[in-house]
């Protein structure tokens, strides 16, 4: 009886070796079965609908191939809607990102009182989830034409209306900021915590102040993460529907799609697919950029 090396590096009689490796191969095939339900679910409820949109975009109402649907989104009123949505998303992502980073950094400082961190983090969790209909109403109560802040500013002699509007870029950005900003705080906390204490102390020991640390070590290390999260924020804002709807904004791709599903006529129903496709394209680009940035992040923060 000869001894044969197993895959793990041990020895076993060759008679058994054959059966064991066959069993292992069979076991490997069966293990995939364990995750089958999940992938089936995802396929059914996520991949197929998304795939259908991509395909149907290139289909006419009767079933032939066409590019006219895609072409339609380059005509009014869609481009301006895309433009507005991208601007809005970018603005809220940028400011949400920067502010989120600054506040996360502040919350994690070693000297702050112990209650600050739980208070801000749990509130951030709340605010990040508060998006949607109630948020729109809350901001209407704050900055609407009869809003508390509006009235306050009027008393101080500043009239923000009619130039300001909650449906305009600035107004909507502020509303979006309410959930983007805390989202960034929550996402940023683990990233900043990933900056080892030893790096800061070593930097300080070598003569660098706080600014020096961030300039040479902190920011270079977390910038990929920071950017990646901002991109995520962008995607989040770009997909927003309920908040915009409740604010009464109409020139967003999401809202426009919604109008089709609602059965509003006046738009070509095939446009819905094209619009959805357009959104998917933007989102895919977002995801790709995010993945690339994530890969850079893991290099430093291992």
């Amino acid at each position, binding site marked *: 009886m000869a001894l044969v090396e197993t895959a793990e590096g041990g020895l076993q009689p060759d008679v058994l070796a054959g059966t064991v490796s066959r069993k292992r191969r069979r076991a490997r095939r069966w293990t995939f079965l364990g995750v089958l339900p999940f992938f089936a679910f995802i396929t059914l409820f996520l991949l197929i609908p998304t795939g259908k949109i991509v395909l149907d975009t290139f289909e006419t109402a009767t079933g032939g191939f066409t590019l006219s649907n895609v072409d339609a989104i380059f005509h009014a009123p869609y481009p301006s809607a895309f433009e507005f949505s991208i601007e809005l998303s970018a603005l809220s992502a940028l400011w949400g990102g920067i502010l989120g980073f600054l506040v996360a950094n502040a919350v994690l400082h070693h000297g702050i009182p112990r209650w600050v961190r739980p208070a801000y983090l749990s509130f951030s969790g709340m605010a990040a989830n508060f998006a949607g209909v109630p948020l729109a109403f809350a901001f209407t109560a704050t900055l609407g034409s009869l809003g508390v802040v509006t009235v306050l500013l009027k008393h101080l002699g500043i009239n923000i209306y009619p130039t300001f509007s909650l449906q305009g870029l600035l107004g909507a950005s502020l509303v979006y900021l309410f959930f983007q900003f805390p989202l960034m705080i929550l996402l940023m906390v683990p990233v900043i915590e990933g900056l*080892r204490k*030893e*790096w800061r*102390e*070593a*930097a*300080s*020991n*070598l*003569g*660098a*102040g706080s600014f*020096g640390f961030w300039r*040479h*070590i902190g920011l*270079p*290390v977390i910038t990929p993460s920071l950017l990646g999260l901002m991109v995520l924020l962008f995607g989040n804002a770009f997909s927003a529907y309920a908040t915009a709807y409740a604010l009464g904004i109409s020139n967003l791709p999401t809202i426009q799609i919604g109008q089709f599903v609602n059965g509003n006529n006046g738009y070509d129903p095939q446009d819905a697919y094209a619009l959805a496709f357009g959104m998917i394209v933007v989102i895919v680009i977002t995801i790709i950029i995010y993945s690339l940035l994530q890969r850079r992040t893991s*290099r*430093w*923060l*291992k």
Partner: protein
Amino acid sequence: MSTVELRGLRRTFGSVVALDRLDLDVHSGEFVSLLGPSGCGKTTALRIIAGFDWPDSGEVVVDGHDVLGLPANKRNMGMVFQAYSLFPNMTAQQNVEFGLRIRKQNHEARARRARELLDLVGLASAMSRYPRQMSGGQQQRVALARSLAIEPKVLLLDEPLSALDAKVRVQLREEVRRIQLELGITTLYVTHDQEEALSISDRVAVMSAGRLEQLGTPAQIYNGPRTSFVANFVGTMNKLEGVVISSEDRVVRCGPLTVTVPDPSFRHSVGETVELYVRPEDVRLELLSNGASPRAGSFEGRVTSLTFLGPVTRVGLQTDLGPLLSDVSSAVALNLAADTPVSVGLETDALRSLVSSTTTPDSSSSDSSPTALLS
């Protein structure tokens, strides 16, 4: 080079006392190890010196100036951390140059100095490597080079070798000492490894529970431990119980043995129970042929265990004085087995009487270490 004085350092974390009025003087160019178990306060003390923590009270004086008012980045001390302290986004060279960059040195001067230091630690070939491309030992060498680049007055090392393999540890500690001697830089070295501390320090400060138990040269610490903590932490000690027979002559009876305690400061009244200590290497064994009695001054014992330690074998014994450990050369130990009867003798010059800690007032000892315990 600089002197460092710690005066009355006290630091509490809530109800835990990390440092309890620590006093320490480090002379210029000296290599002092802070040795003790986890939680004894050695790292806390080091961090306070470096500026990453502040004491509740006390002073840290460097070259006659109190540095506690200075932030960490203005104290001009070099620090080597236990691990992970190299900046991940910079090469070895850039890491070493960092301190110089902050001090606005120009490009060539920085590069020159970086090369010089990496040469010193033997890593000139790794200049363009990133931390993740280096082994633990290499990283710590770069960390050392980096801390020395700024020509600090004081070098602080916080268990720099703990995270490394045993063989690398021995190699690197020799190198650290060699470099320290070459540069003559005042150094404070924190470790829990007594072998490490004894082998490379000028003086060792043994700490326990926030207090300084004993400060002395490695030989003083090992041969003349002043408290039972030091005796047990540094090396191994056998404990013997005895009764004082003569106070003036310092005679104690331990079981069948009558000994004279060598320490002239041993003052106990007749009839008092005392504890005496002796190291395993000072316990001598002789084979007893059947029926023979041990000679005068020795007593009988039986072998209970044999632990092979390489050059030496630790023999566990059961005797009338209780269980004892004896270190004998492994060649001799070949003649021993469980239950072998032996004749046990003690090097009475090596007997010590110790107090349990520095809380109880201690009479001054006979060895001549100038910087003694707290009074």
